[in-house]
């Protein structure tokens, strides 16, 4: 038991001893220092048990000191801010931080689920595939909840995330990834040459190994060198250093994704500050200086808390001034061990043994480091202890077994270049025999690699290589490169990484992937079952998946598979690394596009007038439209819409239709182009006339509909539906340039430039006359049905008038430039009210179009032809138009295809709802008896019934019969009469009334 003691060294480290921070872990209170991560603060307090493992619930500790950490995943925050699977090694400590361990029940020290360890044979490779197969119904009720409880990686937040996120775009000449020695040198070279440079670092301190190891550059300590370089870059106008910024992906054409943790490390974030910022960085050149990741070594129970990567041990000692143990065994097979031995001894940690399998290496390195310890030429075969390491069992070259008491085993199997970013665009890592590891292979255009990421593990090579890469990038872009630089550094001896073979004397479970609880036994089992390629092994065992993406486990897995296959690791291909390099919160990817801000909201010019009138709004695509305008005692949409429909049918109503897509089409060939774009013969329109227009896709399906008005021989005004405006615009521009490039025609989208209102009802002409210039003649003789023309409002403002009807009443659409829209709407509402009418919204508009059998977006759903919709009478017989050829396909002429009909409820109060399925009376409710569906519905005060439009098999033949409209989700079941689509005034006499 170590808790209660301080493991903080008396001096040293990049921690602020005058800034103590309180934090809690699993409800217990502790103190750390500014500059700590949660992991270093836990270790400083002697807390070495950090979590339980994913599958077997084995006790786990802290393994690494960076984003490669596979084990120490904790949950931070609460409710909406709960964040599972946070690596304690990257969580920057702040005052009041509260963390909880994961995968344990009921407590970390006693975990009932640890019995899973006893069922290990059952939970081996592919257990999901083998165990939970049958019956299917057990999945939802039994297996999934069980698996979730037993094996989940953390809990997700149960409430909406209250924080704000944003996305920014950065542009630079040279992007440098990683602020270790190579990255710092590259950024300095590029920035001093004058290139616009961005240096990103995922850590909150720049320096990489310079702050984790005791190094010297040109007589200056490594941490001081990093700090000075960061200050120089920050002072240059053409350079930026972004810490707490993880570069997670490389994308096409020099785009990179990075996430900046803006306020995660603050106890008390300023109000309105964003929590995280997604940076889309566009860079002409990129230098990947992401360093290297140390490899663990395979031996029995190598997952016990206290088994730690040697480089992490040095980072805790040097950067955080924390001793992760009191008595250590160093087990390594490379010369970095000399550094580990020296740093441990300097910190006063007793080194119980140094184990190295290479002939003579243990004795040589022990002597060179001057540390008094037992040198064992051999291997560690097993970590002893359960909740913490209590010793190491080892075997020497002569076959003698040793047992050494210790509470820390520092392991190193050498280093693997962090090549992830170099492979995101399809590049493959290449085997490097000299370093015994896979390193970046072919690079995408504009990318270079430097330092340990390039396999240059020595400090001098990292500095000169980084400098050269930065200078070359600047030179490529036309900047004069700075002269080469040859820094003097303390000597190091980077060595070839090991083969990572498991010693035959190993006992206990040998873990390959700590995060996914994959053992050498699982790898062997998977191979026996035929999963012999790394990609197959990954899918079957989950080796290399989850938050760490195999950063530490990848090399071990490959080595184990190669050993079993009797092949060299170099013959195997590592599994593909894909973005993100490090986990990215969905909130950061969404940025500001959440809730009502998912997309911009468009408001028509007279929106404010509708607000004043108390309208209730409904989204229609990006638009916010008035659904109804409640008056007096009207309690909801049904009463208000009924009253609005009655007002239109009895007097006059005005509806804001400014949201319609509006296009000006002009040029000598405008008529010819529109004839090609529309299925009906709109090019034959006489000037001063308007008519219906139907757009088809190339495959003959209806795409949208609207109107075409000819204002002058070479000038047309076209409308589309409101939601379909952008698609219609794209369609016009595409067809003009791709199919009719020789026509003299121009198309402008003027949707936002014009306000437009529909005025309908027997008194519509009187209402319109009140807002128009009195000189304009609106008599039926001068302005008959389907007339179109330019006019002036009473105040002289320009206007366009169209005599069109959607409601079936005498109706006009009047348009004016947007700046006069609100005034015109106000005037029209007043005119209608004086005549006994009122404004009407989308609901009443829909009811009246159903009464008249007019189709809209709910029927033009991408699967319906003009024939299905009863619009074939409009389709031109003689001209060519988009979609013409495909209309005559035999399957589209099948009379059994669902076609448009009207419905009305038999009982006045039986509601028909959209989405209801139609069945013959007495037929069972199943897919085989499904005859079609209701596309739109409303209540018709005119007919005193619920009415609807529907697409029904053999539609025309069913007119006069009865069907059931069933919608089981909300329990609607209405008996309906099938009628012709136009239920009201089918002969159209009211158009002229």
């Amino acid at each position: 038991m170590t808790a209660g003691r301080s493991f903080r060294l008396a001096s040293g480290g990049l921690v602020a001893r005058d800034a103590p921070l309180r934090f809690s872990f699993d409800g217990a209170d502790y103190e750390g220092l500014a500059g700590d991560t949660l992991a270093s603060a836990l270790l400083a307090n002697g807390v070495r048990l950090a979590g339980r493992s994913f599958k077997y619930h084995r006790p786990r500790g802290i393994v690494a000191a960076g984003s490669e950490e596979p084990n120490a995943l904790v949950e931070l925050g609460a409710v909406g801010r709960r964040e599972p699977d946070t690596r304690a090694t990257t969580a920057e400590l702040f005052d009041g931080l509260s963390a909880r361990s994961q995968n344990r029940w009921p407590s970390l020290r006693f975990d009932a689920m640890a019995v899973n360890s006893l069922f290990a044979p059952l939970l081996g490779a592919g257990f999901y595939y083998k165990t939970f197969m049958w019956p299917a119904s057990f999945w939802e009720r039994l297996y999934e909840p069980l698996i979730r409880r037993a094996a989940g990686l953390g809990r997700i937040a149960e409430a909406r995330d209250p924080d704000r996120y944003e996305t920014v775009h950065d542009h630079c000449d040279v992007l440098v990834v990683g602020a270790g020695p190579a990255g710092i040198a590259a950024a300095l070279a590029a920035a001093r040459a004058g290139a616009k440079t961005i240096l990103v670092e995922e850590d909150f301190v720049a320096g990489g190994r310079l702050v984790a190891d005791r190094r010297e550059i040109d007589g200056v300590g490594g941490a001081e060198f990093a700090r000075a370089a960061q200050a120089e870059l920050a002072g240059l106008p053409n350079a930026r250093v972004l810490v707490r910024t993880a570069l997670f992906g490389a994308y096409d054409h020099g785009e990179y994704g990075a996430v900046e943790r803006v306020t995660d490390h603050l106890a008390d974030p300023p109000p309105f500050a964003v929590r995280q910022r997604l940076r889309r960085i566009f860079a002409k050149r990129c230098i990947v200086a992401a360093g290297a990741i140390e490899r663990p070594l395979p031996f029995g129970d190598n997952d016990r808390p206290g088994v730690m990567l040697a480089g992490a041990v040095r980072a805790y000692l040097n950067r955080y001034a924390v001793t992760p143990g009191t008595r250590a065994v160093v087990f390594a097979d490379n010369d970095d061990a000399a550094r580990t031995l020296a740093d441990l001894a300097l910190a006063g940690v007793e080194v119980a043994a140094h184990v190295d399998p290479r002939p003579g290496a243990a004795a040589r390195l022990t002597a060179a480091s001057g540390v008094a310890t037992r040198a064992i030429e051999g291997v560690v075969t097993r970590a002893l202890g359960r909740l913490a390491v209590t010793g190491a069992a080892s075997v020497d070259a002569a076959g003698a077994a040793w047992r050494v008491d210790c509470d820390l085993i520092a392991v190193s199997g050498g280093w693997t270049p962090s090549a992830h970013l170099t492979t995101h665009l399809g590049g493959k890592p290449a085997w490097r025999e000299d370093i015994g590891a896979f390193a970046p292979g072919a690079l995408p255009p504009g990318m270079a690699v430097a330092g340990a990421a390039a396999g240059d593990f020595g400090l001098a090579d990292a500095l000169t290589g980084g400098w050269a890469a930065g200078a070359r990038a600047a030179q490529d872009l036309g900047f004069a490169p700075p002269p080469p630089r040859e820094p003097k550094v303390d000597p190091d001896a980077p060595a070839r990484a090991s083969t990572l073979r498991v010693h035959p004397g190993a006992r206990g479970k040998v873990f390959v992937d700590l995060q996914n609880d994959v053992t050498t036994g699982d790898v062997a089992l998977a191979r026996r079952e035929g999963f012999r390629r790394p990609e197959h092994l990954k899918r079957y065992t989950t080796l290399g998946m989850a938050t760490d993406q195999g950063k530490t486990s990848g090399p071990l897995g490959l080595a184990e598979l190669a050993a079993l296959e009797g092949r060299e690791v170099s013959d195997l291909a590592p599994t593909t690394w894909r973005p993100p390099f490090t986990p990215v919160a969905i909130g950061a990817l969404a940025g500001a596009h959440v809730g009502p801000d998912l997309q911009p909201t468009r408001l028509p010019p007279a929106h404010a007038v509708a607000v004043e009138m108390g309208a209730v709004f409904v989204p229609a695509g990006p638009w916010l439209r008035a659904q109804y305008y409640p008056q007096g005692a009207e309690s909801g949409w049904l009463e208000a819409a009924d009253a609005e429909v009655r007002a239109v049918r009895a007097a006059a109503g005005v509806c804001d239709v400014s949201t319609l897509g509006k296009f000006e089409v002009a040029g000598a060939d405008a008529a010819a182009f529109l004839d090609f774009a529309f299925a009906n013969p709109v090019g034959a329109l006489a000037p001063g006339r308007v008519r219906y227009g139907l757009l088809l896709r190339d495959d003959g399906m209806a795409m949208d509909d609207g109107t075409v008005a000819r204002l002058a021989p070479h000038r047309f005004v076209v409308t589309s539906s409101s939601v379909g405006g952008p698609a219609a615009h794209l369609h016009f521009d595409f067809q003009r340039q791709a199919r009719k490039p020789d026509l003299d025609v121009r198309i402008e989208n003027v949707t936002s430039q014009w306000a437009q209102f529909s005025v309908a009802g027997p008194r519509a002409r009187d209402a319109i006359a009140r807002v128009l210039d009195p000189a304009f003649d609106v008599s039926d003789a001068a302005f008959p049905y389907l007339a179109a023309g330019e006019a002036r409002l009473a105040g002289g403002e320009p206007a366009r008038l169209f005599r069109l009807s959607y409601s079936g009443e005498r109706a006009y659409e009047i348009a004016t430039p947007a700046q006069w829209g609100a005034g015109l709407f106000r005037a029209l509402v007043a005119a209608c009210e004086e005549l006994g009418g009122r404004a009407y919204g989308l609901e009443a508009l829909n009811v009246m179009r159903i009464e008249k059998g007019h189709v809209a977006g709910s029927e033009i759903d991408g699967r319906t032809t003009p024939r299905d919709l009863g619009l074939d009478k409009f389709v031109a017989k003689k001209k060519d138009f988009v979609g013409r050829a495909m209309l005559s396909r035999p399957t589209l002429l099948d009379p059994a295809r669902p076609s448009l009909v009207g419905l009305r409820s038999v009982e006045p109060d039986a509601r028909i709802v959209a989405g209801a399925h139609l069945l013959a009376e007495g037929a069972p409710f199943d897919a085989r008896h499904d005859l079609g569906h209701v596309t739109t519905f409303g209540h018709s005060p005119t007919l005193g019934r619920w009415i609807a439009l529907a697409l029904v098999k053999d539609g025309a033949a069913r007119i006069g019969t009865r069907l059931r409209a069933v919608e089981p989700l909300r329990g609607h079941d209405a008996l309906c009469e099938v009628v012709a689509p136009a239920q009201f005034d089918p002969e159209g006499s009211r158009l002229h009334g």
Partner: protein
Amino acid sequence: MRLTCPHCGERPHDEFAYRGDATLRRPDPAAPADPEAEHSFVYLRDNPVAGHREHWLHAFGCRTLLVVTRDPATHAIRSIELAAP
């Protein structure tokens, strides 16, 4: 992806609307009906591993339709020209 519009310069792909294969030729409406050719025009698409000529419309820019020659394996852009010069 970044596309260099001849009018607007290098712009992110978010500004463009993809409109598919630019090598398709609409069957001549004046020729006798050829259902095979019509079907091919509407539904059949080649998926060449080498350069692919495709339509991109600069929807949030100059509204010009471009013919982009792109390597589908690497996304390398070989050329960008106006569809209707």
